[in-house]
């Protein structure tokens, strides 16, 4: 009987995974952004140039700016690509996109997503099925796999906009799953590999570092939960260090040998870009910029400000990368770094002094991701996925987490809308967004129907407000006379509105982490 249950279990999972894979195939002819050309160019660079040239090549403006493992990944792909179309591997063939190139690149994303599917499968294993109902659609496992596999953000960023986030998040989820399974070394190894694929994951590295140090290297706690200093295991510490160093050596070693490390790092961390992306990511700085704009308008109205002194770019923001503040002090990279560190610190302290096992680690990881999203320098709106995906794991566990997850996800996903601005993709993004939002809200509501309602009136009205906002921005505004005068208004409205929601979710999560009593420990005692 158990075997039978297992069998049917495998069947619904493979149906879900296959279903979403087929949907991805249907998305092949959709619009793709310049990232498509970026990755084509990297294929060409890694295929046709020696390693020593990889981080120096600049025929195209889209130079290689991901860590070496990703370059190797493109190198491997390029050896498949040559059977599709040799021309795409020429570095001088800028903006080349034959139909075979398109097919190859889209399918490369779809195939590498297999790792993501496997990771989701692993993550679903440790979801406790104690309170699971008999009904399949109400099982936490089922809900979690839908939330991860059919994630709206991942679908549109990877399979429409074009990026390779799927297998990278697969690596991350897999390493989280390994930590939950107490296979710490494996988890650490996977995360180290991930870091050398895409360095944006550095944002969550503090959580990994502190968790492994606190809960793996220290083998025992005092009865009150505080650290027992003599339990420090050097063997574990050294094996961790060895793994990280070996992975780094494998990745950066060749470039160290070639004496190119400074060049590689200058490509990986370009601080020349502005505080905000062309479209403001919905974070703290979006609110800051908006406040600055409001103040400057008020100042101009009340004649407190001299119009000549106001920097011109500030009135056409959204078009210019460098944003100069009119009233509030301008923000430097160092300031954002300090803000980010300050925002991360409490969660790290929490992880160190109030260890709650892997769940506590997961919360800390999400807080790290969210905090750096809130205060980081030149944050992309896509970075919200770094918080949304791990948060899905938490959402099926507790009603409180589910409520935060839903607010964060819905606003975060809505803030991805400006990524797709072409008319044929408008119905797709609205339909998929509705699909994911309706499913996530109703399934989690059903899961936690015995507890108090997930949203209060304020949250409900905020989420419902996204509907009118979308109608205004994409259906009414283009037909008004403001379209030419203030083309940036829809983007500004979207990012400010979403910033409110994400800040709220961040705040709520922080409060719940800080005020959470040591439930696990008291139970153990």
């Amino acid at each position, binding site marked *: 009987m158990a075997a039978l249950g297992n069998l049917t279990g495998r069947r619904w999972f493979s149906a879900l995974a296959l279903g979403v894979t*087929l949907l991805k195939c249907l998305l092949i002819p959709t619009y793709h952004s310049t990232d498509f050309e970026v990755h084509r160019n990297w294929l060409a660079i890694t295929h046709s140039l020696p390693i020593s040239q990889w981080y120096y090549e600049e025929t195209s403006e889209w130079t290689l700016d991901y860590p070496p493992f990703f370059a190797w990944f493109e190198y491997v792909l390029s050896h498949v690509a040559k059977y599709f179309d040799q021309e795409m591997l020429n570095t001088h063939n800028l903006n080349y996109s034959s139909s075979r190139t398109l097919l190859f690149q889209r399918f490369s994303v779809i195939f590498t997503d297999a790792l993501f599917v496997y990771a989701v499968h692993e993550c679903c294993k440790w979801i406790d099925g104690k309170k699971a109902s008999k009904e399949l659609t109400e099982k936490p496992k089922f809900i979690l796999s839908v939330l991860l596999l059919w994630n709206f953000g991942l679908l549109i960023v990877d399979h429409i906009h074009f990026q390779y986030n799927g297998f990278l998040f697969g690596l991350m989820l897999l390493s989280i799953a390994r930590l939950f399974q107490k296979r710490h070394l494996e988890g650490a190894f996977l995360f180290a590999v991930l870091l050398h694929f895409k360095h944006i994951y550095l944002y969550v590295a503090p959580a990994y570092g502190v968790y492994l140090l606190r809960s793996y290297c220290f083998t025992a706690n005092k009865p009150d939960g505080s650290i027992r200093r003599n339990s420090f295991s050097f063997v574990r510490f050294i094996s961790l260090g060895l793994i990280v160093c070996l992975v780094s050596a494998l990745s950066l070693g060749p470039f160290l040998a070639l004496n190119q490390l400074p060049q590689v790092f200058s490509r990986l961390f370009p601080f020349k870009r502005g505080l905000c992306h062309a479209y403001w990511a919905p974070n703290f700085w979006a609110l800051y910029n908006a406040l600055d704009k409001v103040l400057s308008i008020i100042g101009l109205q009340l004649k407190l400000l001299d119009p000549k002194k106001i920097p011109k770019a500030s009135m056409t923001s959204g078009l210019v990368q460098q944003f100069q503040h009119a009233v509030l002090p301008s923000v430097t990279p160092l300031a954002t770094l300090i803000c980010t560190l300050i925002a991360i610190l409490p969660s790290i302290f929490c992880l160190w002094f109030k260890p709650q096992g892997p769940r506590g680690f997961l919360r800390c990881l999400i807080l790290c991701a969210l905090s750096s999203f809130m205060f980081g320098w030149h944050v992309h709106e896509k970075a919200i996925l770094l918080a949304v995906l791990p948060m899905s794991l938490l959402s099926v566990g507790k009603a409180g987490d589910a409520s935060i997850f839903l607010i964060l996800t819905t606003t975060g996903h809505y803030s991805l809308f400006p990524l797709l601005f072409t008319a044929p993709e408008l119905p797709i993004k609205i*339909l998929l967004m509705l699909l994911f939002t*309706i499913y996530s809200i109703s399934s989690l509501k059903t899961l936690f129907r015995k507890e108090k309602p997930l949203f209060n009136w304020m949250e409900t009205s905020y989420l419902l407000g996204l509907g009118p906002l979308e109608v205004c921005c994409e259906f009414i505004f283009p037909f008004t006379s403001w379209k030419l005068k203030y083309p940036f208004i829809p983007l500004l409205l979207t990012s400010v509105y979403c910033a409110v929601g994400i800040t709220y979710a961040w705040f709520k999560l922080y409060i719940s982490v800080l005020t959470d009593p040591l439930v696990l420990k008291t139970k153990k005692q």
Partner: protein
Amino acid sequence: MEKWYLMPVVVLIGLTVRWTVSLNSYSGAGKPPMFGDYEAQRHWQEITFNLPVKQWYFNTSDNNLQYWGLDYPPLTAYHSLLCAYMAKFINPDWIALHTSRGYESQAHKLFMRTTVFIADLLIYIPALILYCCCLKETSTKRKITNALCILLYPGLILIDYGHFQYNSVSLGFALWGILGVSCDWDLLGSLAFCLAINYKQMELYHSLPFFCFLLGKCFKKGLKGKGFVLLIKLACTVVASFIVCWLPFFAEREQTLQVLRRLFPVDRGLFEDKVANIWCSFNVFLKIKDILPRHIQVIISFCFTFLSLLPACIKLTLQPSPKGFRFTLVSCALSFFLFSFQVHEKSILLVSLPVCLVLNEIPFISTWFLLVSTFSMLPLLLKDELLMPSVVTTMAFFIACATSFSIFEKTSEEELQLKSFSISVRKCLPYFTFLPRIIQHLFLISVIAMVLLTLMTVTLDPPQKLPDLFSVVVCFVSCLHFLFFLVYFNIIIMWDFRNGRNQKKIN
């Protein structure tokens, strides 16, 4: 009850698939001078908008009937007119008389696709959802998965959103008709079905079961009392709705006749292109089209059609039941498709609709049929460069059916509704117990054959002497399947309902 939230999710999945398919190419894209059905629909907008009603169906200097002349009933023309008004609002160039011929642009494609999407959303999908919700003796979950499978049926999606047609309108009206008649709202049901006929004359494939079912209902109520009143009411509804639809064409006798001539073009031959019906398949061995004179072809095809659907129709008239009605719809539409005159490959959709409605009752055979029906349109879909969406949507449909109905475990005699048939055969042949196994094996063979043929058509070049080799083989194989299904459905109709009572005695 809390599971109902899955219904909007399922509908949204269906809509997403529809829209993503619509991003692909359409029939006749960039192929002057005739283009394809996409251009035909655009041309009808141009004609209906710029010419007076009187000239719509006539060959004039402004309306060359050789170039996609209007050959659908008035409702299609009105729909084109409505779309034309919207087009005029957005960009008048799209429907300018003469100059807009062969107009193609991304924006126009988007507009045309949107009109299909809206029509589908307004007519077909609500009817489908309502139908699934009204299913009796099924759990909520089953109703929802049933809706998902029907929404994902690839044939309709590919023809409407890929090839470009408005089948969802006529099929949607027909579905409203079926729904109404099955729920005893006979007048509304027949009104909806009249609209369907007046949108596409091919809906006549469904008309006999409607007629027999309603007539049977009248008989049941007693022709001297309530039944007669109902009959009169139905007749009035049908006549009134036809008159309203045809009002502008009733002014002159010549108008009406001309429309009818356009709707039933007898001189276009027994069949067109490659169709998976008897005549086209038979053509491989014997060129009937050239040997026999036209009027004899008409008579032969009429006789065959009439004979093949007669038993099911008589049975339905004598014992009208919603379930029998659905099965008779399948077998009648299939008879028309296989034997009647001037059939298009797309007409298989008219059979697929009632098969979708019995998906819940006989999941295994229905899924099989729906797969074959999509496969039978392969040559058309390949011509429109829709290979990728066809393969993907077919796989999605198959996975949806396989997971939600677990079709492979449901091949017992009872699940196939063949129990009473086998029992009566066993009276003569006691060892007749291998039917389910045979059907399972046939299914496997058929799927393998379909996959292989698809692969061959896509990868291999046909020999120079026989350029149509693969499409003929595809049609021939599909035709064999359809004959098998015709026999199967007729067996179910003839045996299963009569023996509903007897079964209890036997058990």
